């Protein structure tokens, strides 16, 4: 994807839950996608992880079962060298092309926007749903000028813009920006770019519609 300079970021509560490993998977994947494009949030995440380090250091000790120390020593012997196993390089995965998806999305959608199996969802809107264990992870492609009906959420909705832009009650969201919406937030996004707007959306609950039939959003849930 192109170089981005995000203006909408992870909230402090999200930073903590993410660092704690306590964010529902669908939301965490969207948060990781944003962080891969946002150095400011990566730095904030390190701060939140320091809190985890402090907490674990302040923990009571749990006594080892008999023989644990000997077992550890035996495992050191078994791997005679402390040489680090080579880490995989991400250079190939991150090779930038106009259609390259952010690396954190590769396990769910592959590497490229090109040739994705888009499915019709509504007029001007296509989507792809990824299989994840917990919540809903959805890539959306919305045509220029189209809008999504006013809706709210039971739970949280995280959206990260990958391409294009949209406007809603909370501002303009462009490539790299992250939108966090909670239970009380309703919005009606309207696409604001000449090209289709492509977003990754994570949901840990249901959507509910206001002033439109629930069926209008139904395609979002049909795999």
């Amino acid at each position, binding site marked *: 994807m192109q170089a981005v300079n995000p203006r909408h970021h992870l*909230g*402090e*509560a999200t*930073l*903590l*839950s993410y*660092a*704690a*490993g*306590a*964010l*529902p*998977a669908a939301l*965490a*994947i969207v948060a990781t996608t944003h962080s*891969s494009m946002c*150095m400011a949030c*990566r*730095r904030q995440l*390190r*701060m939140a*992880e*320091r*809190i*985890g*380090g*402090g*907490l*674990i*250091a*302040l*923990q*009571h*000790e*749990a006594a*080892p079962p008999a023989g*644990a*120390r000997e*077992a*550890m*020593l035996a*495992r*050191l012997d078994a*791997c005679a060298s*402390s*040489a*680090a*196993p080579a880490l995989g390089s*991400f250079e190939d*995965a*991150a090779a930038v092309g106009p259609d390259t998806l952010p*690396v*954190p999305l590769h*396990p769910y959608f592959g590497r490229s926007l090109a040739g994705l199996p888009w499915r019709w969802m509504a007029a001007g809107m296509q989507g792809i749903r990824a299989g994840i*264990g917990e919540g809903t992870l959805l890539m959306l492609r919305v045509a220029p000028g189209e809008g999504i009906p006013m809706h709210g959420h039971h*739970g949280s909705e995280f959206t990260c813009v990958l391409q294009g832009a949209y406007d809603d009650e909370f501002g303009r969201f462009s490539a790299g920006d992250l939108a966090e919406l909670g*239970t*009380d937030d309703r919005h009606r996004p309207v696409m604001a770019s000449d090209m289709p707007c492509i977003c990754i959306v994570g949901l*840990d*609950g249901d959507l509910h519609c206001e002033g439109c039939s629930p069926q209008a959003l139904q395609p979002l849930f049909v795999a």
Partner: protein
Amino acid sequence: MITGKSTEVAEALQNPPSAAMHDWTAQLEAVACRHDRDSFMRIYDHFAPRVRRYLLGLGVGGALAEELTQEALLRVWQRAQQYDPGRSNPETWIFRIARNLHLDRVRREPAWRMAQEYLDDLDGAVDGQWPPGTESYAEEAIIHQAIQQLPGIQARVIRMSYFEAKSQQAIASELGVSLGTVKSHLRHAFLKLQAELTCKR
């Protein structure tokens, strides 16, 4: 806002006086440079009981908790050369290893670890938040003190997040408050700890 100091945290956490005296960065360097087993076992003796408690607290069964504790410490042994004191202090590095193992093996989110390694990779080796020369144990002491001074409710939502891996929604349900309230407590806790660390470093 609740301003009382948390007795809950004081009861649940302890501050071993010996911990602050150890320079874990130096121990890790000895492991990285010389494969020093004595240094490693000092790290093991201190951190393994805490990693074990962390995993047990997350609900991991005894046998698996022991297996993952050993695996976490084995990674410390194997990857000591990759530890970069400019990026995190030793306890944070070990926390991340344990957290990532739990998400990978227990929660079965296999893409998580890859994603974390990728995020690490993005900033190269020299993007430490702390100026070189900041002793990690001094930094650790500041954060330990700041955590212990959090107001009770903030300490509670922090503990439920880190030690029980509870989502904000689950915390809200358990405490009988709104999601917004949980977010607000987490937010204030983060800002407070961040302020402590940036003022006193």
